[in-house]
């Protein structure tokens, strides 16, 4: 019965997609011809755009304002001076308060991909305040955005037969019906190591599927992203977590750009936190010395700004 429902829904989407495409091509033959000549498939529009953005290293309103890009990258002296100025504003503040105040100044009012110079300043400030070497681009890899909305995800099955009851104490989100993009964490319960338990507990979801070169650079990219450590910072309250990438998503039409395990979301914003703006940077940790979980750079964590 379930299989029939699955296949009906899949067929409905596929059929509707084909019908819409044919209708569009018939209604706008000149547009269809234009896209054919440019080699642009609308199904891969997001990847085309990501390619242009990464080539230009920036975002925003290009038609209405001059671009700011690599030519405006700050020098290391400028970064150090900017960070020092931020740190001196309020005297001796708690690190978390300092981070929140700095983010207010450094981030744009609306969530969007950041320009390279903005990311450089944030990397330096985050390292300065939390001691975590977080990078928007690592070993030449960069996500389509490092500043976006994170949404709550479910637990992932770690091995065949894994059940929700094994994932306490956070049961509310439930268990994802399917597997993560990298399949089971281990072949069996007996093979499940402490590291793999931590990887599922503190997992992050990123939109690898929309990377412009995802298909062309396999299997390298799939291996590179598997369990890659990232630092996620709640930009409203400064709570930060180091997580491991263990799934691909969320879909663009959800309005979210990242996902977090129940544990990640609980730490970032509390029990009712379902969606919020975050920074997500790779952790530069070649020696594998940085543990997954909360980044305790401050003795007091601030849950006052939890977004519902």
């Amino acid at each position: 019965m379930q299989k029939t429902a699955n296949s009906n829904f899949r067929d409905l989407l596929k059929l509707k997609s084909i019908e819409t495409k044919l209708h569009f091509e018939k209604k706008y033959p000149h547009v269809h011809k234009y896209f054919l000549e440019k080699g642009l498939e609308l199904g891969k529009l997001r990847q085309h755009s990501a390619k242009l953005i990464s080539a230009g290293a920036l975002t925003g309103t290009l038609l209405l304002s001059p671009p700011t890009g690599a030519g405006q990258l700050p020098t290391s002296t400028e970064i150090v001076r900017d960070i020092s100025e931020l740190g001196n504003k309020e005297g001796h503040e708690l690190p978390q308060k300092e981070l929140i105040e700095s983010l207010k100044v450094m981030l744009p009012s609306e969530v969007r991909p950041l320009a390279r110079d903005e990311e450089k300043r944030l990397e330096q400030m985050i390292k300065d305040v939390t001691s975590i070497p977080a990078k928007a681009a690592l070993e030449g890899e960069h996500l389509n955005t490092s500043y976006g909305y994170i949404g709550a995800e479910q637990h992932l099955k770690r091995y065949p037969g894994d059940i929700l009851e094994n994932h306490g104490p956070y049961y509310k989100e439930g268990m994802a019906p399917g597997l993560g993009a990298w399949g089971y964490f281990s072949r069996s319960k007996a093979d499940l190591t402490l590291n793999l338990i931590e990887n599922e507990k503190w997992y992050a979801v990123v939109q690898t599927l929309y990377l412009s070169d995802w298909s062309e650079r396999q299997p390298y990219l799939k291996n590179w992203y598997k369990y890659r450590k990232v630092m996620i910072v709640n930009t409203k309250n400064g709570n930060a977590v180091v997580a491991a990438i263990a799934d691909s998503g969320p879909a663009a039409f959800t309005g979210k750009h990242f996902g977090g395990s129940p544990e990640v979301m609980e730490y970032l914003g509390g029990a009712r936190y379902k969606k919020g703006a975050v920074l997500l940077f790779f952790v530069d940790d070649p020696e594998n010395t940085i543990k997954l979980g909360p980044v305790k750079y401050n003795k007091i964590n601030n849950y006052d700004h939890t977004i519902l």
Partner: protein
Amino acid sequence: MTTLFYDHLIIIKDLDKKIKKYTSSNDEMQELWFYVEELIHHRVLDCCLGNLPQKHHHEFLEMFHNHPHDTGLLGYLNEKIGKDVEKLIKAEMKKLSNELK
């Protein structure tokens, strides 16, 4: 935000939950996401081009092809169409959302 100039207008609530419920692997889920993406892009462009006088189509396509993320395109469309294109796209997405329920 930005990978596409209309990204902030295409949030379809609950569809992702339905897709997750009906799929058992990430590959299967991504296949369905792909169909939805195709549907959205065709419907949004149909909405824009259907309202935009044909004499502006080529200019719009050039700008869209070169800067698909540029939210300035909304301003361009508003000006040439003489209507609030964001409202038109939102209405189209609501319609699509109902069709997929």
